[in-house]
């Protein structure tokens, strides 16, 4: 039984899209995923399932299938760090056969930045090559080695971008390449610096990339000044300006800082959601999925 990607349908219809991120745990308790699915249901278009971003957890394929079973459309995230082209294509075939319709293609955090820092990596192909591989499987019905795929492979392809990555020329070149390779939607790293995001979006617009792909800027509720500083220290793809850290610090105790983090997130959503070329919002929960319904309600998405 083939069904369509609701995310793809909404992109085509020009509807405003809300996606949110779910980080699976090192857990075999399926009721946790069912609870998250229930809290997201009917509030978001689709839910991203992260692929072992900080070390081994329940697989993004299994997590995606669990969400699907619970009635929530998944965005199956796949990184090129842990699987070669054999495993990648094999998992993609399985995902499509079992009803997954959205795939987000990433290179993934390098393993030295995860808890399994002693692990070897794979990086047989990179993120652009993964996007192109999925497109070939979908549009030509063949695997990278030329093997013909039996049956449809109706998958919407997504990719990621970092509006803050400099220099802008290289950043946009990379974005253009992902779009050319086949990315139908782009979820960005968390936006905190509105001016930089606007500049990046303008560059994307001027090259008509916003017409060729659906840009879904990422937003992230920060928990505290201390945690925000630790995050930006560890992950260079996350740009949190000093002014945001100061606002969190000045808010006061832990509860007040959490509240301020939420307020900042809502403020950012309100500022960026109506920008020309923005097709939706991607809420990066960072594992705090319980924050998502409140963010959606308070930012009037």
């Amino acid at each position, binding site marked *: 039984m083939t069904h369509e990607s609701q995310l793809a349908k909404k992109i085509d219809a020009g509807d405003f899209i809300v996606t949110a991120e779910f980080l699976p745990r090192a857990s075999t308790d399926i009721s946790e995923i069912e609870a998250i699915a229930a809290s997201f249901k009917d509030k978001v278009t689709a839910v991203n399932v992260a692929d072992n971003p900080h070390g081994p957890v329940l697989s993004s394929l299994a997590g995606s299938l669990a969400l699907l079973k619970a009635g929530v459309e998944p965005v199956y995230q796949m990184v*090129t*760090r842990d699987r070669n*082209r054999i495993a990648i294509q094999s998992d993609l075939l399985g995902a499509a056969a079992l009803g997954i319709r959205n795939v987000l293609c990433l*290179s993934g*955090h*390098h393993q*030295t*930045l995860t808890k399994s820092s002693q692990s070897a*990596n794979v*990086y*047989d*192909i*990179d*993120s*652009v*090559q993964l996007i*192109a*591989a999925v497109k070939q499987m979908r549009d030509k019905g063949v695997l*990278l080695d030329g093997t013909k795929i039996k049956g449809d492979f109706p998958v919407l392809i997504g990719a*990621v971008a*970092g509006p803050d*990555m*400099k*220099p802008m*020329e*290289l950043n946009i*070149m*990379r974005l*253009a*390449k992902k779009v*050319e*390779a086949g990315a139908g939607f782009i979820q960005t*790293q968390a936006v905190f610096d509105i001016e930089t995001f606007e500049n990046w979006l303008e560059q994307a617009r001027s090259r008509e990339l916003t017409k060729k792909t659906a840009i879904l800027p990422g937003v992230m509720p920060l928990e505290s000044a201390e945690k925000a500083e630790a995050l930006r220290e560890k*992950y*260079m*793809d996350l740009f949190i300006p000093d002014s945001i850290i100061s606002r969190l610090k000045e808010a006061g105790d832990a509860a007040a800082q959490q509240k301020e983090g939420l307020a900042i997130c809502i403020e950012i959503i309100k500022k960026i959601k109506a920008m020309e070329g923005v097709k939706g919002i991607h809420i990066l929960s960072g594992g705090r999925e319980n924050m998502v319904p409140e963010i959606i309600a308070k930012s009037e998405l």
Partner: protein
Amino acid sequence: MIVAERKTIPELVEILNGHKKILVLGCGTCVTVCLAGGEREVSIISSALRIASNIRKLDFEIEELTIERQCDNVFIEQATEAIERNDVVLSLGCGAGVQAIAERFLEKPVYAGLNTEFIGVLEERGIWTEKCAACGACVLHQYGGICPITRCAKHMLNGPCGGSREDRCEVRPDRPCAWQLIYQRLKGIGQLDRLKKIAPPKNWETSLDGGCRVIIREDHRI
């Protein structure tokens, strides 16, 4: 050149413990240049092992020798007598040198005194950096002479990853992002257009992934 680093003296003592007559064998090529396993290091390591032997009463008898190249039969022959009159060889050659010696003296234990690190260059006094992963199908002409396979921690062939920040690499913040260097270099030589083309998946068959490699030159076998 091949760049190596010395194992620590406690590690070497652990490896050699129980043996008596030890030949510390240096190599006069790459590991001499990178100050890890040449004549000078043979002398330093031998002295340190003698001191350790005296303190711990290990009864080491150490002979020192350095040959021009441990990976070459012609030079290995010059070490034959010294190898035969000792119980074991502590080779200060690279991984290739250690194995070349071991394959030619089947009855003799041959131990590695170095950790072979990479193919690289002397960046500045006391600093060596990796430049080549010996993938067997060089792509340097496409990337302005900067290797994305070796110098990008994710071997990205189509541009930087998200962890590239103002010329730093997320994986090693003390090292430059290879992709920033490639971008600057290609821009400088007027070849930025090369980056716009999607590079297809690499054929890794020519690399170590395709199995341990051998080169047969028929024109040199006549």
